[in-house]
């Protein structure tokens, strides 16, 4: 067993770090304050080939492994969790299912511009009454000649207001709870698709979130993703690999909290010495570093299992719940280390603490991850 990344992986990590310092750090505060979608940064990411990392070159991607992609998400999130998440949702939840379940035509038509970063993707699954309980969804897709007619309201759709391509889910057979849901690709310009309420969030404010409404939205039959009835399977599989991205994002946020805490605690003088000389602060920093390292290796492990074609659902859930919870805990500790200054706008830790919380909620709550893990362990 060797815990070392390849030279290429290290360079890619370092380049993403440099990218984030150059293009993301200067806007991170402003896009958070204004809840602004950083279109110019996403364009730069696309130019650098970062928006379709794990997909084959023939479909516009870079063809790197999932581990390398997740490492890039961590580094980007270290500068701005919202930008990291925009890339992660696009890659893991929107491009991912088309790459895995799409046919060649769908990959050419939809995945290719997405993987090149020309089109942004969104994943519209959650509904007002169907969060963790995906099966409680009410959206329907009715075949009418050569078209499916979609009706329903999706909510909390990340990238919703700015996406060009949506992967969405609806019942093709409402009576079959197990195999009655199907997945579809819906281009933004389709009549009957509209963007509803934009949500103002506590954190990751630069990531755009909205309702997506389908009202007699007609899409060609060939936009069915996978087979009729594959919806639930596709959704669950997407979450499995999307979770690795969220774990990486959480590690990025936690690493940023540690970076800030180290530099502040060495500078802040109280009682005649830097507060980093106090054991109370040292223990917080030691715990942060330990948990970050543990979390990082958990998501590396899940990603490397996926890259080897081995089952990774349980490991992705473990990485996600562990990284999310340690991220929240340590972002809060980082504010504690910064004291009153940390509670004020202008200190990065204030943003980190708000950004951290969502990692425990989206792409499966911490409780849902424990259901997955327990389900596997108690089998």
């Amino acid at each position, binding site marked *: 067993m060797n815990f070392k990344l390849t*030279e*290429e992986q*290290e*360079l*890619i990590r*370092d*380049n993403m770090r*440099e*990218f984030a310092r*150059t*293009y993301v750090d200067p806007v991170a505060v402003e896009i958070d304050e204004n809840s602004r979608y950083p279109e110019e940064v996403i364009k730069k990411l696309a*130019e*650098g*080939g*970062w928006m379709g*990392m794990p997909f084959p070159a023939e479909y516009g991607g*870079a*063809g*790197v492994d999932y581990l390398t992609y997740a490492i*890039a998400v961590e580094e980007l999130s270290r500068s701005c969790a919202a930008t990291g998440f925009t890339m992660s949702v696009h890659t893991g939840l929107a491009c991912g299912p088309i790459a895995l379940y799409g046919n060649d035509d769908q990959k050419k038509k939809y995945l290719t511009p997405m993987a090149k970063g020309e089109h942004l993707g969104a994943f519209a699954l959650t509904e007002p009454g169907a969060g963790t309980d995906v099966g409680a969804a009410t959206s329907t897709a009715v075949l009418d000649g050569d078209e499916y007619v979609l009706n329903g309201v999706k909510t909390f759709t990340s990238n919703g207001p700015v996406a060009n391509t949506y992967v969405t889910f609806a019942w093709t057979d409402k009576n079959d709870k197990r195999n009655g849901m199907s997945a579809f690709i819906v281009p933004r310009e389709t009549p009957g698709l509209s963007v509803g309420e934009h949500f103002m969030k506590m954190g990751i404010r630069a990531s755009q979130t909205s309702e997506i409404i389908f009202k007699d939205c007609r899409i060609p039959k060939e936009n069915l993703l996978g087979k009729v009835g594959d919806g639930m399977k596709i959704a669950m599989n997407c979450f499995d690999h999307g979770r690795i991205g969220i774990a990486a994002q959480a590690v990025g946020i936690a690493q940023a909290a540690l970076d800030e805490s180290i530099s502040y605690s060495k500078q802040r*003088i109280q009682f*005649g*010495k830097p507060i980093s000389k106090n054991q109370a602060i040292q223990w917080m920093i030691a715990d942060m570093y330990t948990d970050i390292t543990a979390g990082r290796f958990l998501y590396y492990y899940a990603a490397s299992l996926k890259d080897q074609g081995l089952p990774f659902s349980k490991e992705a859930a473990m990485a996600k719940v562990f990284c999310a919870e340690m991220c929240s805990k340590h972002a809060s500790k980082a504010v504690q280390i910064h004291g009153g200054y940390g509670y004020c706008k202008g200190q990065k830790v204030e943003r980190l603490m708000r950004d951290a919380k969502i990692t425990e909620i989206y792409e499966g709550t911490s409780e849902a991850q424990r259901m997955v893990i327990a389900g596997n362990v108690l089998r």
Partner: protein
Amino acid sequence: MPNIVCCFKWVVDEAYIKPSSSGKIDLEWAEYKLSDYDRNAIEEAVRLQEIYGGGVTAVTVASSDATKGIKDALSRGPEKAYFINDDQFENLEPSQTSAILAQVIADQIDYDVIICGEGSSDMYSQQVGPRLAEKLGIPCIAFVNQLSIEDKQIIAERKTDEGMEVISAPMPVLVTVLPDINNPRVPGLKDTLAASKKPVINIELEDLASEYKRLLIDKGLKAASIERNCTHFGAGPEDIKAFVEAIRKTGVIDRG
């Protein structure tokens, strides 16, 4: 169309130079990076190529484990690299580094312009560039912060203590560049992936005519330490007296 050579050094990333509590510096876990100004040298070579055509070759003299440095340099645009390496090639004297570079460049590489960083991030001796030019018998222009090519001449703007100086020189020529000459681009993902597939010419000690014995030997590394005693002073005349008295006690100044 000019053949452009850029030289680079793979150095310890200063972010990893941290003293232990005993004052020692342990570089065992240190990461390496491209020397800062050499990034500017590579970027300038690639920028000139984009304008005037030609080719860009990267050259380094390094220890044998600097393979990541080769990939890093190639990801920034050069189409091939000469990796002159040996385990002894760490802590070479600038005279040795320049002699090795001169030998390989003279024997194996067609060049019109050679670009070096003004100095390396680790030693900053500023000698390798000028010495290399001397050994190759070509003109050298140092402290350059703007470059262009006109009619087989290189036009360089130099930043000197007296002000800016614009000069020209016939090619082949060597220039050493300052950091404000350009903003090195961040390699994209595909640049890094492509770098692994570019040709690397491996040159080892036995391929070189001369021997290069290590002249500089590390006797040990020690960190400079700053002891803060956090004494506070005001700005009144009495405070200034107290301040002078306090630093006199430390022995930093003496009444003489």
